[in-house]
């Protein structure tokens, strides 16, 4: 599974961090950081993160 976040769309709402804390985080400056190739076992929570992104900025490939 590959995760791609469109950082031009991202507005740092952090909803993905709540949904998938193993994959998404906010750094000290409040900007999003994420694991681009998370384990497939995390698919459910990554899909949840993509669903709850207010900007629909998260894409899952594979």
């Amino acid at each position: 599974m590959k995760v791609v976040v469109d950082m031009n769309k991202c507005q740092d709402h952090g909803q993905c961090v709540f949904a998938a804390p193993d994959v998404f985080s906010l750094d000290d400056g409040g900007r999003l950081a994420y694991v681009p190739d998370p384990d497939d076992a995390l698919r459910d929570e990554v899909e949840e993160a993509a669903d709850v992104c207010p900007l629909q900025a998260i894409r899952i490939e594979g």
Partner: protein
Amino acid sequence: MTGRVLVAGASMGGLRAAEQLRAAGWTGAVTVVGDEPHMPYNRPPLSKEVLAGKAPFESLAFTPKAAAADVEWRLGTKAVGARLDERTVTLDDGSTLAYDGLVVATGMSPRRLRCPGPLTGRHTVRTLADARGLREALTRPGVRVVVVGAGFIGCEVAATAVGLGVREVTVVDPLPLPLVGPLGELLGRALLRRHEERGVRFALGTGVAAFAGEDRVTGVVLADGRVLAADVVVESVGSVANVAWLEGNGLDLSDGVLTDESLRAGGRPDVVAVGDVARFPNARYDGVPRRVEHWSIPADTARHAAKALVAHLLGRDREPAPFAPLPTFWSDQHDFRLQSFGAPLLGLGDIRVLDGDPDGDVVVGYHGADRLLGVVALGGPAAAAGAARYRAQLLQQPALTV
């Protein structure tokens, strides 16, 4: 597996319902009916980025999950009647669809003002077509806009209009402060000051009596006798549930579709409601059924409702899990954001500043029943991050019911 689940409504709730039916194991047909010509799209940008001309439609459209690729979309048509005992729905093109399971996801329509005066020049913001029409009106040189209603949509539209360079932007509301209904006085005062500092004018404590003009609006006549000149009027005075098509089936449709804790309507295991049209009990709070018009609710209700519906259709036993979503919403206005978790509306009687200062970044807590019921942050990213810390506290509290 044979049979069909019919999803009435092709907005976010309808899309999530279709996807969650597949996730819950339904492999039969899924048909989604929606009156707009578009595939489901994200509505929050309509009053902000779309109005500002910064978001093309492609950036709003949801990308349906691969598992929902075989869903049948019937767009540009809508449900106009239903016979739930016979499991059929009638569409406005005269056709009748039979179903095994029905998902009600028909959402809301903007409430309109019933005042004397012309209709031309009056706008609402619910659909993409609405937002495009309003943008065209607001970008004509020299227009004066009056926004009726100082709620979330009204405040967002006013802020976007100022950002577009609109010459005069005035917000009218019978209440004394913007957003005082959902957020209370403390944040209402802070919001009033921030909007005024950025060029929005307010006419508060008075309603609209009439619209001036012959063929099109030239002004707004207030209940206190003042007249505000206006070339464009935006009506943002709440919304009404799209439930008329369900009448005659014995459902409680007095404010949306009343459901049980599994989102089932009228005790029927084959009919569920999702999104802001559903009036459901939330076990996290007092169990009183309410509609919730927050962005997080379509996905939450769709997941829960799809599980219940598919379990019934497949004859499966189901672990009855209480439905207890944590509502969340945000609102971007000018250069600041409101970020909310929980149910501030239930804690308006005891509002306290938790962090910061209403003049800068602030996190406000809403209390009741000896507990924190909701938090709202106002300001920049630091405020939103502050609210997120209290989100964990809200989630950890035991439910008030169950």
